[in-house]
Structure formats: structure tokens, C-alpha cells
């Protein structure tokens, strides 16, 4: 019953929708119908699967983290290894899907927004692969913080445009990408990086990412002959978490927890926990939980992890929160860093700081569960990109 949303108008109950200037509405209608057609086209499906298997390296393993399990002395912990996907994160699942769709629609110019650069790199990768022009908007501050990713994108032929408006971070990069789309809507495909934005993006991104949960379900049934008790994933915009959760939404025995960025503290401006601390509002084309001031201005955010440093969240998560299907919580920068180090030491896996938020929550969850229970954590990305900043602390 949770899986048949959004409705035709792109609403997850009261959340979602299309809140963008009229200029973009016809383009969103065109995209929706092209996507619906592609989704039911066996050839398109085959094409996506081909690249998933042969290029991205899917299926990614579901790895039993034995030493971590031992250390936490609670449930069995499995890691869904999206960090092993090509480019080092789950983002590639979505960009392969969207760029193949762009190609099918005959759009040669691809634009994208990026925070830390993971989605930018994944878009540049898909564009190089499919011979598409790629323009990535990135907050100027982020281009300095993530200089290596800027270079990676350029290496693959993408043009990176530093954004100097507003707070010069992901939120503003998204504004600029949407403004570019308004000006060039006839020729351009906007490859949005998370399950946010106007309809059909939250649905489309979810569907491309849902491969994570589909694989995990098959893999855990094979390994344990039963469904997991808990799924845990970090939530910024929410694409890796919805990707893991979606397949299990109607399995009522499977509990799910989304972990947001608790940042430095839960004071306004010091974190990125939109679902825990925000209230519904409109940003970047959707009605969803939002970190905003008393007068409705979007608040600045903070997180040690650039991928979670965003004031909004995907509308489906807002729905899953209000319906009570998924529990949302947050962990601090400090807790995430400790988990980052712990997994590196215990398993020889350096996790992305984003994924480290999900791992950090295990410390709170494990004592409540027993050894017969199973938890799957989405290890959404690898942490090589974060080594520099952790070293500097």
C-alpha cells in the first residue's frame, strides 16, 4: 500500500507536486510522459540493466560485517556495498538511468547540480559514456572544498560552473541549475541528483535507485532465508535511503530508520536534519519538510558531510515520516566521524561521511536487538573523498 505513490499529479499524499515557474511545467510534462513510456519499454529496461551490470558493476555485494557485528554485540549487520559501484557511490544508478532517458528524448545538453561533487562526477561519467554535453553547477565554496572532484569532472569533459549566489552551496547550485533549465528548456535535460524537486523527479530517481533494495532483498533471502528486521540509511535528499527502503515498504515486519545530519547541534543553522527539525514548506519544486525560519526563509545548514548539507528532503520521505512507516533520527558530526573510523579499522572499508551517519546509528540500535536479528545498512559511498577533511580535523 506504500508502494503505489505518487499519484498522477506527483503527490505522496499531501507532499510533492510541482512548484516551479510555468516555463518549466511543459518540460516536466514532457519528461513525465517520456519516462512513463521508457519505463514500460523492454528495450529501455534492457539497456539500463546492461549498463548496470557491465559498467556500474551491479549487483553490488551484500556483505556480512562480521567484526562490526561482534564489536556491537547485537544483531547481524550486513552492508549493502554501493561504495563498490563505479565512481564510488550509488549516484551512478540514477545518472545512468536519466542520461539514457535524455538520449532517448534526443536532448544532448545535460545539466546537473552537485554538492560534494559525487552526483556531478556520476553525471559527468554517464555523459562521457553516452557522448552527451555536461554542465555541472557547484557552489563556489564546494569547488574549493572538493577540488579533486572538480578535476575529475573536467577530466571527463564536463564544464563546472562555480555558483556565487546565496550561500554558495548545494541549495544555490540547485537554484542555478533550475534557472539554467528555464533559459534553455528546449534543448536541455536536467539530471537531478536526488529524490527531490518537482514531479516526476522524486519518483523517477527513486525508481532508478530502487535497484539497491531489490538486490538486497534477494541477497538477504539467499543468505538468511528471511527478511531483515531493520534497514538503516542516511538521508540528505534521501536517494540512497529510498533506494534501499522502497522494495521493502509493504513488508510490514521490516522496520526502517533514516538518519539525518545532526551536525554540530540541533540549533538552527547548525545541522541538516530537515525531517527531525523542520516543517513542511516549498523549496526546489516540491512541498516537503524544510529547514526554515519563523518567517519562511530557508535556513543555512551544516554537516561534516557535504552530501547531507541540504535544507530540504525528498517528498516521499516526508510522507513516510507522517505515515509512521519510517522512523527518522539524526546523529552528530562527532558520532559520524567515530563511525567512519570504526568501520575503517574493523572492516578495512573506508565509508563516505554520509554513510557514516547510518553506521553511527548502529551504536544506538544494536543494544536494543538480539543476535538472531538482522540489520541491513546502506553503505552508499566510499570515503576516499573525505580522507583529506578527516585528516585535517
Amino acid at each position: 500500500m506504500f508502494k503505489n505513490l505518487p499519484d498522477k499529479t506527483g503527490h505522496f499524499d499531501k507532499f510533492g507536486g510541482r512548484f516551479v515557474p510555468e516555463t518549466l511545467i511543459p518540460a516536466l510534462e514532457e519528461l513525465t510522459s517520456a519516462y512513463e513510456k521508457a519505463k514500460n519499454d523492454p528495450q529501455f529496461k534492457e539497456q539500463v540493466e546492461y549498463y548496470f551490470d557491465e559498467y556500474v558493476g551491479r549487483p553490488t555485494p551484500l556483505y556480512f560485517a562480521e567484526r562490526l557485528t561482534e564489536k556491537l554485540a547485537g544483531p547481524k549487520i550486513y552492508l549493502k556495498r554501493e561504495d563498490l559501484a563505479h565512481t564510488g557511490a550509488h549516484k551512478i544508478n540514477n545518472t545512468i538511468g536519466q542520461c539514457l532517458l535524455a538520449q532517448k528524448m534526443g536532448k544532448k545538453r545535460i545539466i546537473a547540480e552537485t554538492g560534494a561533487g559525487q552526483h556531478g562526477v556520476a553525471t559527468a561519467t554517464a555523459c562521457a559514456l553516452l557522448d552527451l554535453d555536461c554542465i555541472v553547477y557547484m557552489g563556489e565554496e564546494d569547488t574549493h572544498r572538493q577540488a579533486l572532484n572538480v578535476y575529475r569532472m573536467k577530466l571527463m569533459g564536463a564544464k563546472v560552473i562555480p555558483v556565487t549566489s546565496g550561500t554558495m552551496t548545494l541549495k544555490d547550485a540547485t537554484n542555478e541549475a533550475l534557472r539554467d533549465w528555464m533559459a534553455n528548456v528546449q534543448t536541455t535535460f536536467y539530471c537531478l541528483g536526488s529524490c527531490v524537486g518537482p514531479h516526476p523527479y522524486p519518483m523517477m530517481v527513486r525508481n532508478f535507485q530502487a535497484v539497491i533494495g531489490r538486490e538486497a532483498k534477494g541477497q538477504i533471502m539467499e543468505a538468511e532465508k528471511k527478511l531483515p528486521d531493520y534497514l538503516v540509511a542516511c538521508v540528505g535528499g534521501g536517494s540512497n535511503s529510498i533506494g534501499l527502503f522502497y522494495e521493502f515498504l509493504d513488508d510490514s515486519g521490516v522496520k526502517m530508520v533514516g538518519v539525518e545530519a545532526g551536525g554540530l547541534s540541533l540549533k538552527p543553522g547548525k545541522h541538516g536534519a530537515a525531517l527531525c527539525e523542520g516543517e513542511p514548506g516549498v523549496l526546489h519544486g516540491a512541498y516537503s519538510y524544510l529547514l526554515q525560519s519563523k518567517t519562511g526563509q530557508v535556513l543555512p545548514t551544516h554537516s561534516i558531510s557535504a552530501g547531507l548539507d541540504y535544507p530540504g528532503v525528498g517528498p516521499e520521505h516526508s510522507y513516510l515520516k507522517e505515515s509512521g512507516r519510517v522512523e527518522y533520527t539524526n546523529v552528530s558530526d562527532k558520532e559520524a566521524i567515530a563511525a567512519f573510523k570504526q568501520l575503517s579499522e574493523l572492516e578495512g572499508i573506508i565509508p563516505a561521511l554520509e554513510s557514516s551517519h547510518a553506521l553511527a546509528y548502529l551504536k544506538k540500535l544494536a543494544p536494543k536487538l538480539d543476535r538472531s536479528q538482522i540489520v541491513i545498512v546502506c553503505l552508499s559511498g566510499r570515503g576516499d573523498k573525505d580522507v583529506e577533511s578527516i585528516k585535517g580535523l
Partner: protein
Amino acid sequence: MSRISEAFEKRKALIPYITAGDPNLGITEKLVYALEKAGADIIELGVPFSDPLADGPVIQASHLRALKTSLADILKLVKKIRKKTQIPIVLMLSDNLIVKYGPEKFYRDAEGVGVDGVIVPDLPVEEAIAESREPKAVSRIFLIAPTSTEERIEMIAEASTGFVYLVSLTGITGKRKDLSTGLDALVLKIRKYTDKPIAIGFGISSPQTAKAAAVVADGVVVGSAIVDIIAKNKRNPLPKVSKFVSSLRRAIDR
């Protein structure tokens, strides 16, 4: 007849845009009177928002300068202005500000203080209809873009009250050298579905482009060019703004 309709009856409507609170509400008030004196028929007041999606750099910067000014402050200002002038005032604001204020309360308060119309650039007509806010006295002005399909033009023209706002170009607000081509055809398409007044906005920044737009439509919105003058003359923008708006008036009437 509403104040907006009267304005369009009189002559080709000149609709200057300023961001309320930029540089402060005191100057915004004085600017409203000065704009009227210089030949404005309707005033479009922008409500500052942290993320104005449809705006170019000039208006974005004005929003950031005025960000401490809240919607409630601006409604109070309109109340004050209404004691001195009956010039129609249209608020332009992002949907989140209304959502946060509370839609019902907003439309009630807007009507109470004498706001004539509301433009919400990121609220397309279907979401607005679904929300079923039904202001009685406050006009709801929706945008038609060059990308709008015929079906949408009909729906938007039908839903708009007061006037229909035609976005002159595919893109964001800001100065452009020339007026886009094909606007006359677009206006004719809209006229097929409605006899409501049509105002053209986005990119109109000189007496020449204002005149060209006034020839094809019933009204002209000029924003960035005025906001730019205010930004460059923060202490006393009145003389230069008045001079510029008078030049627009003269060009339109010529």
C-alpha cells in the same frame, strides 16, 4: 470594478516592480508614491525570499539585501500606503512565504490591508486550484510562458483574475537588450481564450522595449532595471528612479 481593472481601462498599464525593504521599508514607501507620480498604474511589490527561483542576479541581490523584511512587515506597509493612495498593489512572492504564513490567513490579511493582487511565480495553476484557496477581493495573477501549451494557456487565462502575466522569454528576470520575437503571436493566442488584460514582463528594461511590449499587450512590467537603479543609489534612489520611470511612461504613451 476592481482597482486593477480600472488601471487597465485608463491606458496601457505601466507596472514597475520593486523589492519591498530594499534598501528599507521607509524608502519603499516613498518609492511607491514616487512611482505613481512618475506614471505607474500598478505597483508590483516583491517580498524578499532566500531562494527566488525565477529571478536573475539583480533581483536576487535585492532579496538578499532585504531578507530581514517579513511578509507581515510588508502587509503593514501596504496598510500604511493605503491611507495615502489607491494605486493598485500586487505582491509577488514565493509560495513558501505564503505556506509559512498560512494561506487562509494570508489572503484574509492581504484583503484587509488593501492588496489588490498576488503573483506566486513558483505556484503553477494546477497546484493553486488543488489548494482551493479562494480569495474574494484579491486577484490571483498566473504566469503564461512562451513554452506554455495551448491547453495550458486556456487553463491559466481562465484561472487568472485581474490580469494575465505573460513572461516574455524562456528564462529568468533580468535586463535584455531586445524584446523577444513572437510575442504578438503569443498575445493573440491568449486573446483567443480571454478578454482579461495581458501584461508582459521579464527582460523589459528600456523605454524602447517597454514601448514595443505596450504595442502588443495591455501592460508592461519593468523590474530589474529599476531595482538596479535602487541598488546603485541606496541613500536616495527617488530622483533617478522617477526619472527612469517617467521615461518609460513617455515612451509607452508616444
